[in-house]
């Protein structure tokens, strides 16, 4: 069962930008693409834990600021020749508000 948590307004994030949500087990990066889709991923690149929220967002990908790994926002998978993945979270926009699914976050904290 999903537990949607209202975290912010869509406009609190710049288009092609990202910001972080603090959780008990680390930061989750919330991305907004150029066409106003939102995605939530762990804020740590599978390569060297670089903060993906500080990367350049293009299409539905983000380039990690440390070593230019490109990560798919849709799947969390590293693109191209690089291998690795980060956790993704359910997220949606309703009436201009960003809603994040809290189920996984709780499951993680319980684990």
């Amino acid at each position, binding site marked *: 069962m999903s537990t949607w948590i209202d*975290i912010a307004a869509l406009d609190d994030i710049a288009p092609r930008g990202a910001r972080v949500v603090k959780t*008990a*087990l680390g*930061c989750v990066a919330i991305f907004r693409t150029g066409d106003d889709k939102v995605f939530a991923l762990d804020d740590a690149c599978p390569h060297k834990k670089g903060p993906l929220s500080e990367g*350049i967002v*293009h299409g539905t990908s983000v380039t990690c600021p*440390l070593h230019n790994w490109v990560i798919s926002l849709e799947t969390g998978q590293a693109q191209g020749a690089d291998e690795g993945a980060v956790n993704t979270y359910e997220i949606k926009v309703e009436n201009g508000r960003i809603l994040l699914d809290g189920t996984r976050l709780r499951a993680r904290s319980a684990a």
Partner: protein
Amino acid sequence: MTQRLVIIGAGMASGRLLEELDTSAFDITLFGAEPRGNYNRILLSPVLAGEQEFDDIITHDAAWYACRKITTRFGETVVKIDRQKKLVVTSQGVTPYDKLVIATGSASFLVPVQGNDLLGVVGFRDLDDVEAMLAAARKPGAKAVVIGGGLLGLEAAAALHKQGMDVTVLHLMDHLMERQLDPAAGYLLQKELEGRGIKIVCKAHTAAILGKDHVEAVLLEAGDLFPADLVVMAAGIRPETRLATEAGIRVERGIWVDDTMRTSADDIYALGECVEHDAVVYGLVAPLFDMARVLARTLHGEAAAFVAPTVSTKLKVTGVDLFSVGDFSDGEGCEEIVFRDPARGIYKRLILRDNKIMGVVMYGDTADSGWFFDKLKSGEDISDIRETLIFGPAFQGGELMDPLALVASMPDSAEICGCNGVCKGTIVQAIRDGATDLQAVKSATKASASCGSCSGLVEQVLAAILGDEFKSPAPAGICACTDHSHQDIRRIIRSQQLKSIPAVMQEMGWKTSCGCHVCRPALNYYLLCEWPLDYADDAQSRFVNERNHANIQKDGTYSVVPRMWGGITTPQELRAIADAAEKFNVPTIHVTGGQRIDLLGVQREDLPAIWADLNGAGLVSGHAYSKGLRTVKTCVGSDHCRFGTQDSTGLGIKLEKILWGSWTPHKVKLAVSGCPRNCAEATCKDLGVICVESGYQVSVAGAAGMELKQTEPLASVETEDEVIELAVAFIQLYRESADYLDRPYKWVAKVGLDWVISRVVDDRESRAALVERFEISQSVYRKDPWAEQARPEYRPRKWAALADLTLEAAE
């Protein structure tokens, strides 16, 4: 004794003649009325449109003539040929010849109406015309009237429109390009150009050009009046035959020549647009090149004969596909096959006689033009394939062919390069002889060396012959999002006045929706450099360090480096740095190579607070994270040092106060040393100053990173003010012309130090303009980004977390 060969005219025809000749067999003197050597006149349209630069279209440079021992007399007009004494006369004196070649080309035909000699009336023949047009286009809202709707007129009109002018084309005939197009294709072309905003008036009889000294308007016989700041005469060309006429050489419409390019006079030959062969005058480049080949052999005493070729036409207007060849006027026994798709703007028409293709007109889709052209030239009987002929090669034999298979199936006699008349067999031979890429084929055969539109085809021939051995060249694009190079992008941003990242991507056909981490920062830089007052910096197109005004470290913390002007600090500043380090638990304090102090390991959320504390003591950002001005390193100079010759510290501080905050293609570091002992290590910087007793030695383009390179001298000057002016002008030129992420030493290697010196040192007007443009940009960017980003309103929006769910998760 070596024969003295004198050539009058340095155009495309004589340029090709020189290439075809064994130049060691003659003592050659080349006269040209223009003050420059041979260049590719066909490509003046792209130069006018801002898509290419003049340097790109030069075909022969000074070195080329020098190594062939050709004496060049550019800018010197021949006024007379003396046939009795066998010499040519110029204002500088006389030059004797054993053999003489007239290659005077043609001039724009000036419509014989009142006012055709006013200022602002130009032809479209040479670089001077192009420069005059570009100067007129610089005036905002300027209006241009182009007289003549043929090939040249329309290329000029499209290019001037692209340069932002309000353009009207006046055409005498019923439809555009009536010599190459039928009315239907002419109409489609007119609709396309009108859709772009170019006004077109057909059946326009010019009555007069009005104006006092400078052109003001064009008046038609019907009474219409068109205001104009510029009038371009493109109503045709007329062979330049005056010298030949006065020398008593036979002249019809052009200078008469026989099949071997001999004129009616002994030892005098002619070629190019100034000649008439078999009652025909030629204006396209392919036949001129054939003439050059024939004349070269004639001069060497070999047999050769010029045969009138079939020529085709393509319009060089970006985004317009148009092809025409042969005879397409309605005539006895002619039949035609027509294909129309009005919605897609496609029109194809084949004219047949006796089951052979006599003419082809294509508009909107010219992919099959080469196939039809081959059938026309070979005179092949097409009755068997007539039903599907108009659909092109893909429909013959039922199977769709990929482009490679199509090229592989072409006969050796098929023409690949129309300009130079190079057929497939010649290219295949060149490849078998060892050419493995486009450049090698180009130099061996001339294929694709003129207008360049067949480059793709040549590469396909390479791929067909070499198979996997042929590596198609890496696209020149700056990343996978585009095929455009850095310099293309900069040029188009400038010429088309593009002022946003989406506009650049739209106009230049980006392949991705919003670019990538390679192209976006480059575009952001090019736009803010070109339009400092109009363009708003895009934070989302900045690399993290420039967005957060601090350097990200491997663990996601940041380093903070306050500016220390010229490496000078005070007890108060040092105290404030120490206090901040303690307050924010900075784990590492490091002294940098740029004479300042680096606080490493600061948490992201602490950045605005530590900046506010440092600002409080008067410290500002050191931009240690930017592609911009980093540091100006100094020694203590004449203030303290017993060897110091000048106030190197003071000069360093002045330079840093002027340059700080500016964005550049890559980082920029300076140094000022007070004497040649060079304690500030100025000779490995992007710009270094060495003080000496008599003044200052300024040198540039050093490197001390992955590569190590000593600076090269820019200039020696006597005053601090001159040093500052040179430094600012150098950096502004670098800002305006370098590829993004090229350090100055790489940029200087590409453009040449001589060019940099000519713009920055020798040409005082250019230097002053560079300084002025730098100051305009600095009126926006010479400020402390830390002070701005530390303001309270930035904190919730940028530096705080979007939400804190630590409690939520702990439930």
